[in-house]
């Protein structure tokens, strides 16, 4: 309830203080910077970071044969520590064959379907999160680079539009919180800039690992907006835009967030 009241107050507040435009690269901050010392300590130590439980399962799945071909990820990609280094920092990507944007989870499922001839893993399933955590871990410390692929620009533009568009019963846009009011308080929590530099991440509120898509759905319901279906292209556009908006930050996957 307090949260809802605060959202309403914030909506009134921001109406008078609308600032157009994005966060300048030198002002970009990972949400890590505003986390409590305890949460930071959890992320800093792999032994204390519960995401490690998924990472270890992902490492095992990486070399486990699957599907009609009985091939494992390792059979094609070899050692993930080498072949997947820095890869997650460049996802989502524009995929020429499908003409759409694919994020890391969709890429893993593409491989399963087309290369391993296996059934795709369900969104947010333990196996899919485990594999994406294992792959993303290999990008820890990598710098996020905005996609220069001309074909991706259309999706980035669409994502930017979605980000600045007001929606939901609270009539809020993502930008009103994450561009205009980051660093300020919302019901006792600091509003982060909203950079996807740690996904999949262990969220204390979820008590579990979750994907960027889960977080976006979370935000949408917080704005009391209608959720797009799980496989809607809107999420892809938002994800690819958010990655371009986070360029110059370093990857922390799998991170811990409150």
């Amino acid at each position: 309830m307090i949260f809802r009241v605060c959202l309403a107050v914030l909506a009134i507040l921001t109406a008078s203080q609308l600032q157009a435009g994005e966060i300048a690269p030198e002002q970009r901050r990972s949400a890590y910077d505003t986390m409590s010392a305890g949460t930071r300590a959890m992320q800093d130590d792999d032994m204390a970071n519960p995401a490690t439980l998924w990472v270890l399962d992902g490492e095992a799945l990486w070399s486990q044969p699957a599907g009609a071909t009985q091939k494992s990820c390792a059979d094609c990609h070899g050692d993930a520590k080498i072949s997947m280094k820095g890869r997650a920092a460049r996802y989502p990507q524009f995929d020429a064959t499908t003409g759409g944007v694919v994020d890391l989870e969709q890429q893993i499922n593409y491989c399963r379907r087309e290369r391993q001839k296996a059934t795709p893993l369900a969104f947010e399933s333990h196996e899919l999160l485990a594999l994406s955590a294992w792959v993303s871990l290999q990008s820890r410390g990598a710098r996020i680079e905005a996609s220069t692929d001309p074909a991706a620009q259309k999706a980035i533009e669409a994502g930017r539009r979605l980000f600045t568009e007001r929606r939901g019963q609270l009539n809020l846009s993502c930008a009103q919180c994450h561009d205009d009011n980051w660093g300020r308080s919302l019901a006792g929590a600091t509003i982060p800039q909203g950079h996807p530099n740690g996904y999949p991440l262990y969220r204390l509120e979820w008590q579990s690992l979750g994907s960027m898509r889960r977080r976006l759905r979370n935000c949408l319901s917080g704005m009391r907006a209608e959720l797009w279906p799980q496989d809607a292209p809107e999420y892809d556009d938002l994800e690819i835009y958010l990655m371009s908006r986070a360029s110059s930050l370093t990857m922390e996957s799998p991170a811990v967030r409150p």
Partner: protein
Amino acid sequence: MARALINVPPRAKKGDIIEIRTLISHPMETGYRAGFNGSLIPRDIIRSFVCLYNDIEVFRAEFSPAVAANPFISFHTMATESGKLTFRWTGDKDFDVTETQEIVVE
């Protein structure tokens, strides 16, 4: 299958205070939450954790529904002799996981 992570220093000097850290995957379902049909989701938690050092109990913890998922436990003990540390988590739904680690004390 629950996955457990245990961190014990592999070597220690006799008399040293050593830190032991454990992390185990578990949903820690409180038993107070309602499911989609309105009925309560049955409680499913770890009830107890015990650490044995060469079969002598050095640490024990009782868990309650308020403990977070994937519980992380950190505690200290004194390195007395080389041997085996045994960790056992038991709980609802016949949850029973035992892990061991070796330690060399010089």
